[in-house]
């Protein structure tokens, strides 16, 4: 009689132990799977590339807009912005022609503003840090007499990444009727 209760007493925890062990294993399996899944997503080359693409586009659009914006009353600030948006040869060109250009704008007393209508990245080499963008732009030029002229332009930009920042290294207007510009 006294022995009988001892048997279930000793055995009773076992099914519970087995159950909790199975539960723990399932939980561990789930955690491992989710962890691996997360690791995969966090180290996905594709998403890193996609993020770089969006960064390049944002920087490209901003730089193109900056380079089409200039107020004759605030030339220094505007031209500083031009230089900080660019790099390489384009920056050198702007720097070397800065004085002359500033005088021209001062004389013309124009205020130029630009709005990006649309933009897209056409090429991206995230290792070399190079990208090409297309930007459709509406440029508004306000002359000294207050007359406004609007002009749509389509720009090709080339971006180079320097110190983890995308900057314009070349900018040109797409030629119209210039055969098939590659």
């Amino acid at each position, binding site marked *: 009689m*006294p022995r009988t209760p001892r048997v279930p007493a000793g055995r009773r925890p076992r099914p*519970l132990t087995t159950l909790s062990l199975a539960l723990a294993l399932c939980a561990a399996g*789930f955690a491992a799977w*989710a962890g691996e899944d997360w690791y995969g*997503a966090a180290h996905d080359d594709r998403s890193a590339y996609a993020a770089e693409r969006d960064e390049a586009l944002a920087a490209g659009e901003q730089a193109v807009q900056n380079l089409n914006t200039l107020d004759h009353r605030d030339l220094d600030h505007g031209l500083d912005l031009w230089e900080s948006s660019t790099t390489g040869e384009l920056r050198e060109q702007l720097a070397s022609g800065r004085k002359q250009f500033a005088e021209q704008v001062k004389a013309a007393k124009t205020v130029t503003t630009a709005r990006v209508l649309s933009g897209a990245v056409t090429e991206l080499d995230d290792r070399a840090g190079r990208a090409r963008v297309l930007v459709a732009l509406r440029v508004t030029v306000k002359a000294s007499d207050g007359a406004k002229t609007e002009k749509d332009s389509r720009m090709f930009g080339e971006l180079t990444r320097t110190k983890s920042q995308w900057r314009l290294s070349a900018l040109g207007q797409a030629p119209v*009727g210039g055969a098939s510009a590659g």
Partner: protein
Amino acid sequence: MRLTRPRRASAPALTRPATADPTDDETTAGAPVEEAARPESGMPGGEPTGSGAAEAREGGPAGPQAGEVPESERPVEGADRAEGGGSDSRRSRGGRLRGVAAAGIVAVLLGGGCAFHYGAHQLRSTEAARNRALTDTEATARVAGEIDNALARVFSYTPDGTATAERSARAVLDGRAARQYRDLFARIRDDLAGQRITLSTEAVRTGVIELDGDRARLLVFLDQTSRRGNGKATTAAAQLTVTARLENDRWRIVDIKAR
């Protein structure tokens, strides 16, 4: 009551699990179990009388107090005694502790798993990651090529050959773009024939802004060369954003906006 108590005391070692277990199941009875166990270890030869048992119960809390001095002086013996006398209560407490620990571990694992799962979902569903423009080079090149081709066909015609353009339009345009195109052609068809206008359209550059499964948005720079009769050809630039949808494994333009 009087019958059960002496029996319990007469065979303490064997019956103890039996008495401890039911109380063990009652989570609120944690204290009584200890009380019952302590007197037995402190007084092995406890009187099998009702008053003795009652005394033992009452003296229960005092037991550990009395044993405190030697226990603290001789910790090894104290530990031995604890193992020998209170093993069941300890075991049940240990089992409960293990249970709590196991539940804790399971909870941590589940919580961590959920956090990782959520994190992975967040990473994948970011706007940048969903947009496959350029990340999927094949699909990007394909949609750009098909849209270039479609625009060239739809917006190129000769004075006598508008039917070809309109036929192409039916194949590659859909939705708002198709309606706009029909309206446009209804207005200009007579003029085209009367003024002998030839138009040829070419996509100069195309960039895919967004590509998400079966939807795409593109920026297209077009050159449109038109000629009136045998006059001089003039080229105009056009910038379009085109919305396209993949239908039956074919990209169709559903909206065109001039920029």
